[in-house]
């Protein structure tokens, strides 16, 4: 069974198409990255899946059921959601906030202490949320999303405000949840570091689906080049490669297609004066830029 299923689902707001009919199937245990600029339709997609809004056209199914239907209450017990910029209740302590949400979700209060510990807030749990830093609030939000061991997690900009180490911890947490069988949708325009943890990416632009697939497929489709950074004295590259080079600070930058990667690498290693070589594969950012530019070009 698909955990999430969108069939030609679209949403209009007073005549404006926030989301043009898109299709999406998400299997159990998958981690999907949902990318796009502001206004690309990410939030609309998330709201459709959460059952906060009804699609104008098409169909949305979550755990095989209508998320706005009669069974919504039961579906919601298995959902976890963290939205962007939630500031919670300033006057309450972290523990009180989490207990409140736990009660509403019908969870055991034992989970509260456990989750506070898991997100590293146990030492601050008795302090008022007012005194929390942005990162701490984000972690409290994450603990909230994890209440009741949800089978489907939707996280909107989850790493905003987290320092690099906390971000890494967060992604490792995602990997753990995935291993436990959770299905996760990560929604972001901050892309660095997320590659390793997502199975598939869905790129949206102006309410349209621009690209969808695993990162490998998307890179291949976009045919983005591999970049080599070469250092050495008096580097003389073979003529066929020399055409693709640019001089950069203290060396040479060479871009070739991915199919040529190994052949070129062998040629480069054979160069007698080569001192150092750095290889950079296309990053998610490059893929993202390629598909969003592609949309702008086609307009």
């Amino acid at each position, binding site marked *: 069974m698909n955990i999430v299923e969108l069939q030609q689902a679209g949403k209009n707001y007073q005549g404006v198409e926030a989301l043009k009919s898109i299709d999406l199937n998400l299997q159990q245990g998958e981690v999907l990255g949902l990318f796009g600029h502001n206004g690309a339709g990410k939030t609309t997609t998330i709201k459709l899946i959460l059952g*906060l809004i009804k699609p104008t056209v098409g169909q949305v199914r979550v755990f095989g059921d209508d998320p706005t239907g009669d069974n919504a209450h039961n579906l919601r*017990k298995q959902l976890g959601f963290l939205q962007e910029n939630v*500031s*919670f209740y300033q006057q*309450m302590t972290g523990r009180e906030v989490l207990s409140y949400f736990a009660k*509403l979700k019908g969870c055991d209060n034992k989970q509260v202490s456990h989750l506070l510990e898991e997100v590293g807030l146990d030492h601050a749990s008795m302090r008022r949320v007012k005194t929390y830093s942005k990162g701490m609030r984000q972690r409290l939000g994450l603990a909230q999303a994890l209440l009741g061991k949800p089978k489907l997690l939707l996280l909107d900009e989850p790493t905003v405000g987290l320092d690099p180490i906390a971000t890494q911890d967060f992604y490792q947490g995602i990997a753990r949840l995935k291993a436990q069988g959770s299905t996760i949708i990560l929604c972001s325009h901050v892309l660095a570091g997320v590659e390793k943890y997502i199975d598939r990416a869905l790129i949206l632009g102006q309410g349209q689906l621009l690209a969808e697939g695993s990162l490998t497929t998307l890179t291949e489709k976009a045919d983005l080049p591999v970049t080599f950074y070469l250092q050495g004295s008096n580097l003389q590259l073979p003529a066929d490669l020399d055409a693709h080079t640019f001089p950069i600070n203290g060396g040479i930058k060479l871009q070739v297609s991915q199919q040529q990667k190994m052949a070129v690498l062998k040629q480069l290693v054979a160069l007698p004066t080569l001192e150092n070589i750095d290889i950079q594969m296309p990053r998610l950012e490059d893929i993202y830029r390629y598909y969003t530019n592609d949309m702008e070009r086609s307009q």
Partner: protein
Amino acid sequence: MKAILIVANKEFHDGLRNRWVMSISLIFALLATGLAYFGAAASGQAGFTNLSTTLVSLASLAVFVIPLIALMLSYDGVVGEDESGTLLLLMTYPLSRWQLILGKMMGHWMIIALSTIIGFGLSAIIMGLFSEDTSWGELVKPYAFFIAFAILLGWIFIAIATMISASVVEKSKAAGLALIVWFMFVFMFDLFLLGLLVGTEGNVNAELFPYLLLLNPTDIFRLIIIDFFAQQELTGLMAVAQHAQFATSSLILSMLAWFIAPVLLAILLFNRRKL
């Protein structure tokens, strides 16, 4: 039902934490005790005066203060949560919209009820202790009656404030609207009726005119209190009601209608609110 109580309990505790309960109780206690003690100052004497005079004067003061406090308490109930992002989050929980808004109102009703009981109750106790010509037995029933309807008045304005909160998108707009509502019910309405009387030189339908008072819950509240202390002489706009001779039960029913209508409207408006 459980979800409603969880929300109500949270709102009530917010009220305790933010010192709402304490401040409102204090205001009510000071108001009631002060009025009981200094109420007769105009006639050249200080000290606890006649109980019914005190409570009728207190009713006139309460119609200013209680709606204001209730509106201040609840105007940001929905719109405030929307601005902080928690409304969207709550709506992804196994919780219906009507449960959330009813829970919020219930929490605020509990705050008003508790503060009114403490505040006016305290003044009743002070009066019982220090007033020489009022016995405990005489105090209990009028005060209980007064407190009950003061609470209902507060509940009405909490429902109205929640209605406002559910229908606007900005907190500042909700605050403005709440203030306008207060001003309309507390000042403008009576002025308008008096103006109508003066403008037509009293040439209004004496049968129909008093019924206009039922369009304002604060006036109904005053009529109920005056009606309870029947020996009081009616002054000002309230004298108009003498022609109509409203039955106590119909006054109470009108007030209940004023309570139920905004509660239902608040739920309706919140159900239509876009997230």
